[in-house]
């Protein structure tokens, strides 16, 4: 039977049980190598089999952001957290309604004040980063942020930026499914209305 001991050691490191940690460490070196061993009564509580049912507290943990394992691989002096940060003061979600002469007309909704009514805005495509410009099309979604950008050197800059959402494209089977499901609705349209449908 196979046991993942590395996670169990991490668990023991988090707890104050140093004897358990010592006992587990002999099964878990080097860090990423799993060993095979027979269970004993001390370890049973903490070490779960890979074939365990879903509710195994050790192997299924999803709450740790920075596991201690990462530290062992970090170059000396490297920082774990990115140094700059952005503090949002206002935030809107927008959808492009029209693009004409390199100007976007968009409808926006305030994400920080949800009781505010939708508004329409226009902005030049020049406001966008070059690699975001190909994403601009009727129906594209974006986030508009106004806030403070705190730089690593301590400088604070007030910024306004449009970030276009990089949603995965539709798969053909998803498109086919939607077409199949919408066919009964399309049949309700008269001939003139049907001419307006895209093929």
């Amino acid at each position, binding site marked *: 039977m196979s046991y993942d001991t590395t996670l169990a050691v991490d668990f023991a490191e988090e707890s104050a049980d140093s004897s358990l940690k010592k006992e587990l460490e002999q099964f878990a070196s080097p860090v*990423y190598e799993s060993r095979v061993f027979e269970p004993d009564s001390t370890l049973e509580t903490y070490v779960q089999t890979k074939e365990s049912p879903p509710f195994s507290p050790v192997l299924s943990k999803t*709450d740790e952001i920075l596991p201690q394992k990462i530290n062992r691989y970090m170059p000396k002096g490297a920082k774990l957290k*990115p140094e*700059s940060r952005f503090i949002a003061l206002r935030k809107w979600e927008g959808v492009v309604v029209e693009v004409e002469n390199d100007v976007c007309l968009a409808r926006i909704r305030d994400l920080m004040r949800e009781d505010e009514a939708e508004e329409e805005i226009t902005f030049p495509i020049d406001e966008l*980063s070059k690699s975001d410009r190909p994403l601009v099309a009727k129906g594209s979604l974006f*986030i508009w942020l106004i806030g403070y950008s705190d730089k690593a050197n301590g400088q604070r800059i007030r910024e306004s930026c449009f970030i276009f959402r990089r*949603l*995965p494209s539709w798969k053909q089977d998803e498109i086919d499914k939607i077409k199949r499901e919408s066919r009964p609705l399309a049949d309700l349209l008269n001939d003139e209305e049907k001419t307006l449908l895209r093929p």
Partner: protein
Amino acid sequence: MDFELKLDAASVVLRGPFAPEKFHPGWFTANGLINPDAMKDCKVEIISPDISGFLFEWVRFDVQKDRFAFQIKDTAAFSELLQDLVVGTLELAENTQVRTMGINRDMHFLASSLEKYHAIGDALAPKDVWQKLGLDKLGLRSMIMESKREAPPGHIWTKLEASEIFGKEAGIRLDINNHYENQEKNAENIIAIIKDRWKSDIDRSLKIAESLLGLA
């Protein structure tokens, strides 16, 4: 204001298996999940068959053989972009199995005074029980409250502890883990959960934190 939110990070943790060497900065930009302009600010810590670690200006990646973590440090600004990134990654990484997922929000609040800081511990863990045991100079270091969820199966862990990022000033960390079990192990199920529950999980996490700190 008794408590000021100073660090508002969020993460998604997936439990795999995964192939860390497959996930490198170029994979994310080539597949259109990260703006290619962001490559100039990308910092690579390690890319190997066992572990990949790198960060762009707004998002950090840690990929291990059994664990895939995406982390942002400015949730209010980039929450939706993180959602798109995780969904896009799962859709593009075909045949990926995901056993469990956590949608986490990790918040550090600076207390306006030591009294307010202790008031939270006193409200959540009254000291009289401990004082009767002859213990004194008591202080709550950490606690986790679990709320089980039937559908989709999983739980919410609310972890409260003393924050260590403020040096000598007092602060409280609230780390909310919205945990999902995925018995089918298929990524489609996880994608559906993210699309359905992302906003409510992220928003509720902040509300839980603010409500608890309101006890002071």
